C-alpha cells in the first residue's frame, strides 16, 4: 500500500525515530511502513491520522480510490 508518511514526516523535519516516538512504535516499524513493507494496523493508522491531522485516505492509498 502506498503512503505519504515519508513526505509528511519530512515536512515536519522529523527523523524516523522521532516519528516512532510520537506513534509509540519502533523506528524499524516506521521504516517498514514508509517503504511499503508493512501495512499498519487500523489503530496505528488512526494514530498516524490524528498525529498529522489528516484523514486516513489522504495518507494511505490502497489503489482503489
Amino acid at each position, binding site marked *: 500500500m502506498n503512503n505519504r508518511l515519508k513526505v509528511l514526516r519530512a515536512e515536519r523535519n522529523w527523523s524516523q525515530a522521532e516519528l516512532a*516516538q510520537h506513534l*509509540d512504535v*519502533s523506528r524499524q516499524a516506521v521504516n517498514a511502513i514508509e517503504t511499503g*513493507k508493512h501495512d499498519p494496523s487500523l489503530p496505528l493508522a488512526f494514530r498516524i491520522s490524528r498525529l498529522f491531522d489528516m484523514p486516513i485516505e489522504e495518507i494511505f492509498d490502497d489503489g482503489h480510490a
Partner: protein
Amino acid sequence: MSNKTTISRTSIHLAAAIVGCITLVGTWLAKLDVIGGAGATTMGILFVVSAVAMFVTRNADEYVVALWRAGANAAFLALLATYIFAPFAEGFYDGLSGGESHMDTPIDLAPTLAFSAFFLAHSWARLRGTF
C-alpha cells in the same frame, strides 16, 4: 510500554533473527558433518539463545508481531508437511507401486526444517514485506 523499551525490544528481536539465521546455517552444516565439535556446540548454544530472545521479544510492536506471524505460519506448514503430508504421500506411492518398505521420510529432520522455514519466512517478510 515506553517507546525506548519498544525500540530496544525490536532491535533485540531483529538482531537475534540475524544470529538465528547464521547459527541455523551452522546447524545444517553440523548435520552434514561439515563442522563438528566445539563449533557445532557453539552454534547450537547461540541458536538457542537467539531463539529464546526472539520469543521473549515477539510482541515488541506490531511490525515484529507481523514478522513473527509470518515465520510461525511457515514453521507450522513445514511441520504439517513433514509429519503428515510427506508420510501420507510416501505411503500412497508405496501402495501404488507395490514397493512397500519401512518409512523413508526423514522425520528426524522435521524440527530443523521447521526452524529453517521459520527463519526463511521471517527474513523474507523483513526484506520483502509482511503480507
